[in-house]
């Protein structure tokens, strides 16, 4: 059965007789009268009013979560890169140190140690430091103008490692101690290995913290969506009665929440960018001072890399997407519970 409101209503508002217009029937030819044609273009307001969603609170929560998540990403990235540097250095070289002693022929000992080092598996290059070179290394601490001939200076042999062929530090250490009196193999390898392992743990911790923060964000959005739906119950009911599908209703809420997610995410992301830049700038200011240089040597320059900035952008997008998807799923679930 098709409804056709063919007849004009018996009564019109202005009470004038005749000239009765047909009611608005979409396909009725000629019904696009002047009133309709002159109708202004209308921008439709949102179906879920902005004021009905406790938006500012959620934006704050999302901004804070994004900020903390971004800082976590930055910190984890810094630690990861430092650990990578360490790991690379550790693979690259190790040092034999020969302590001076009364009546010990240092040059012979260095030569012997270099020979042993060269024959060890995994060593690609051996560089014995001469007395002068060693002295130069010590200059910053002892100053120039000292005669090193009189000082008992330890001597160094630096071994460059291939990193591919396995290098047996323990065997080399034992052989050196047996054959070259006063020689030790610097054991910073194992120490650094442990530091690297620790750094990796910290990175994984960061990933865990990140996951927790994203979960907290999702939960906040669930609560906010439920609140918005409870506050807009009348709207949801009317939408149902006029034949809206659940997907359409969910889409209306999702649109609202995507906006909130983007706003909060951007605020948090920009704050994190600024923090990185200020921290990098502050670190830059200290370059040249001994303390900062030593920090640099140990931890690398506090300079957040491009990967961290990319990570922040990813976090912002991820949080906006999570917000939007979470609200959609929550609306679906709530609608199902309502029916």
């Amino acid at each position, binding site marked *: 059965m098709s409804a056709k409101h063919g007849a004009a209503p018996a009564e019109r508002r202005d009470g004038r007789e005749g000239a009765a217009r*047909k009611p*608005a029937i979409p396909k009725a030819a000629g*019904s696009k009268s002047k009133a309709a044609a002159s109708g202004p273009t209308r921008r439709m307001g949102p179906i879920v009013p902005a*004021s009905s969603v406790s938006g500012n609170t959620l934006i704050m929560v999302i901004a804070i979560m994004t900020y903390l998540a971004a800082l976590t990403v930055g910190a984890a990235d810094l630690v990861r890169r430092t650990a990578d540097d360490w790991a690379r250095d550790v693979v690259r070289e190790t040092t034999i140190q020969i302590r001076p002693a009364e009546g010990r022929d240092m040059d012979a000992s260095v030569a012997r140690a270099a020979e042993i080092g060269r024959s060890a598996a995994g060593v690609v290059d051996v560089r014995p430091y001469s007395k002068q070179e060693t002295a130069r290394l010590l200059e910053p601490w002892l100053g120039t103008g000292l005669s090193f001939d009189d000082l008992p200076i330890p001597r160094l042999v630096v071994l460059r490692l291939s990193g591919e062929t396995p290098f047996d530090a323990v065997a080399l250490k034992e052989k050196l101690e047996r054959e070259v009196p006063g020689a030790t193999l610097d054991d910073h390898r194992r120490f650094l290995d442990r530091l690297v392992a620790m750094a990796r743990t910290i990175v994984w911790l960061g990933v865990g913290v990140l996951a927790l923060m994203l979960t907290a964000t999702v939960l906040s959005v669930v609560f906010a969506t439920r609140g918005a739906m409870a506050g807009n119950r009348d709207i949801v009911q*009317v939408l149902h009665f006029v*034949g809206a599908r659940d997907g359409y209703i969910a889409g209306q809420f999702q649109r609202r929440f995507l906006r909130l997610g983007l706003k909060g995410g951007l605020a948090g992301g920009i704050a994190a960018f600024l923090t990185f830049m200020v921290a990098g700038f502050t670190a830059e200011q200290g370059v040249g001072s001994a303390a900062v240089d030593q920090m640099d040597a140990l931890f690398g320059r506090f300079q957040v890399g491009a990967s961290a900035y990319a990570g922040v952008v990813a976090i912002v997008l991820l949080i906006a997407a999570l917000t939007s998807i979470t609200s959609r799923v929550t609306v679906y679930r709530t609608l199902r519970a309502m029916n």
Partner: protein
Amino acid sequence: MLRFENVGLRYGLGPEVLRDLTFAIEPNSFQFLTGPSGAGKTSLLRLMFLALKPTRGLVRVFGRDILTLPQRELPGLRRRIGVVFQDFRLLDHMTTYENVALPLRVAGRDESSYRAEVVELLGWVGLGERLDALPLVLSGGEKQRAAIARALVAQPEMLLADEPTGNVDPQLARRILRLFVELHKSGTSVVIATHDIALMDLYDAKRLVLHEGRLHVYE
């Protein structure tokens, strides 16, 4: 187009509000649904527009059994039914135009495709000058007509109206009744729930009378 068989309804653990209802709404028919206040008119309308499921009995709407109807098919059926609520249920944050256009909007239609129709329909119910007014500033009669326009805009096959003249003066009530009669003549089935005897005397139509939970039909 709508068929009830031995339908019973109770709210929660309360008494049966409706009992053993067996009747049909035929295509292109006009009927009053009447009975004293509290007789169950609104409840019966709720069953008819699929807002409630019966506690027993069979309700078929457009040939579909609503007890076994999958959830996702509800919107499709609801779009074929126009409802005028007793309390209008206009959305306060939307203009008259937006409220009336809502059924078309949620059906996914483009605004430019229905603007002319909606403006014309609003003119038809006498709200041509009130397109941009929010419900808060509309009078009771204007809200009533906006609610009616929203129920009509998608050209439903069946129109259900709950006390559509309850809040208006007798003169406007007569105009609204005439509007429904026109609608019926153009092919729509109309059910008007009312306890206003004077209104029913204005138009000779079938009466469904609710009394103590049971329905009596007077042709």
